[in-house]
């Protein structure tokens, strides 16, 4: 009798848990499945199909899209995209790390204020923030006028429509994404660890190099990925600040889908991009694990 009651109770608990999971998880997970996972499956499937005459696809199996992506023209664009995105990421790290470090030295109240000031532009309109640089860097723009007025130059500089302008635009757009994770890694470091190093005879510089820097590494990696990922697939900055002269893989994908109407080839490019990014996330997870493992062990 008691056994039956216990079992009935256990079943009720199980049913309740199942019901809860259905109510809470089913809507969101189905939504993500229908509108993200299945579409990504489509994209992957498309890479093996033939382009349709008026966009779309024809269901004729081929590997031609992949061999076409190996053409030196496209490899070159891919390499250039990676170089541009990597430059933006490196610059963001060089500028962002000291800034994040500086914030950790402030009082808690000021930390919150400065963090808000740094994220605020990030949450505003991306197109407009990119456009603002055209206003600033144009040959008749503010920067050129200012430089001429103070006599540094006498002819306006052509600052826009160069790879450098694209790197600058990407740096500007995603710098906050570098600073936040580095900051959050830095504030989590127990000050006692640094003090211990100094008590054991390390100079402040040594303590920084051997204690702070390694423990900040997970934040640096997350920040780098957060800057690199949206940079490499970006097509707005190359178009607006690169003047269409700098073609990145994002421009190429956009054009295959909206202009050339070669969806299978666009899909191959998109899958290449996604695979590269997944690889980065995988590396980040491994490094993260090894750093945290050392700390605990």
């Amino acid at each position, binding site marked *: 009798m008691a056994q039956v009651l216990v079992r009935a109770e256990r079943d009720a608990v199980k049913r309740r848990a199942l019901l809860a999971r259905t109510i809470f998880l089913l809507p969101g997970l189905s939504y993500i499945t229908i509108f993200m996972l299945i579409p990504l499956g489509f994209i992957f499937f498309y890479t093996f199909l033939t382009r349709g005459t008026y966009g779309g696809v024809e269901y004729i199996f081929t590997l031609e899209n992949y061999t076409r992506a190996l053409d030196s023209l496209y490899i070159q664009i891919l390499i250039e995209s990676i170089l541009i995105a990597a430059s933006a990421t490196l610059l963001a790290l060089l500028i962002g790390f000291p800034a994040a470090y500086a914030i950790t030295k402030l009082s808690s109240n000021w930390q919150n204020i400065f963090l808000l000031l740094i994220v605020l532009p990030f*949450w*505003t309109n991306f197109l*407009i923030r990119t456009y603002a640089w055209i206003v600033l860097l144009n040959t008749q723009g503010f920067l050129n006028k200012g430089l001429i007025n103070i006599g540094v130059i006498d002819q306006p500089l052509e600052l826009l429509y160069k790879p450098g302008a694209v790197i600058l635009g990407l740096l500007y757009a995603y710098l906050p994404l570098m600073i936040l994770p580095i900051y959050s890694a830095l504030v989590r470091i127990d000050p006692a660890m640094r003090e211990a190093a100094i008590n054991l005879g390390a100079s402040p510089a040594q303590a920084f190099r051997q204690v702070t820097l390694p423990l900040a590494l997970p934040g640096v990696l997350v920040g780098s990925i957060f800057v690199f990922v949206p940079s490499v697939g970006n097509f*707005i900055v190359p178009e*607006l600040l690169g003047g269409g002269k700098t073609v990145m893989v994002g421009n190429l994908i956009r054009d295959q889908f909206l202009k050339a109407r070669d969806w299978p080839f666009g899909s191959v490019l998109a899958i290449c991009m996604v695979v590269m990014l997944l690889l980065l996330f995988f590396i980040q997870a491994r490094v993260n694990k090894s750093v945290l493992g050392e700390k605990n062990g």
Partner: protein
Amino acid sequence: MGSKLGWLKLPLYGVLLFLYLPIAVLIFMSFNQSDAPFTWSGFSTRWYGELLASPEILIGFKNTLLVAIVATLLAVILGTLLAVGLARYQRSAALEAIALTPAIFPDLALAIGLLTLFTNLNYALGLDSVIISHALFCAAFVTAIVRGRLHQLDSSLEQAAADLGDTTVGTFFRITLPSIKPAVIAGALLSFTLSLDEFVIAFFTNGPSTPTLPIVIYSMVRFGVSPEINALATLVLLTSALIIIIAQRNLKVKDQI
């Protein structure tokens, strides 16, 4: 506050100058009197008036507002439920990763996926397809924020309610929802601005006759600088900034990381 910083002031203030200088110049130029985009010729608010006279911009604004409101409603429901489910009923790193992916995945990859899906379903592109698409990534941001809040909260009250015989739905409305309300509001505000400003996904999933405001802005900035864009840009920037500051009052910046 600054005395402790020493040489670190340079990178900190440098970053702020870098982040705000272009925006400041843009706002300044929006009050320029003449239509010469680069020469200052006196203060005027005429370009703000011109905005109201442009039917293109007004239609874009109306479309964007509709998309942002409906997408936010959808995102808040989906995201909050998902966060509660993941924090209280099914701890799973894999499911959590899937739930947050739409927020960090490249927008271009999401956009072509959605375009492909709608095309395959023969679903006519328009504001409804933009709403569906925006709710996808907005929900992931809501999930992240609400989940962060739930992890800080003790679940013992919820367990007590369940032990005393409250239903799952009852516990949610009586215990869980009131305690995560600030995070839900912050998530909603964030969703709203994200949708308001989103361009790439809207560009791919929108029909030709219903441009959202960022699409209107895109078609304008491609033709170069004009004082009218400066005025519009100023309004859009200030709106987003204001909403984010309000959202921030419900949430510390640190929780967003």
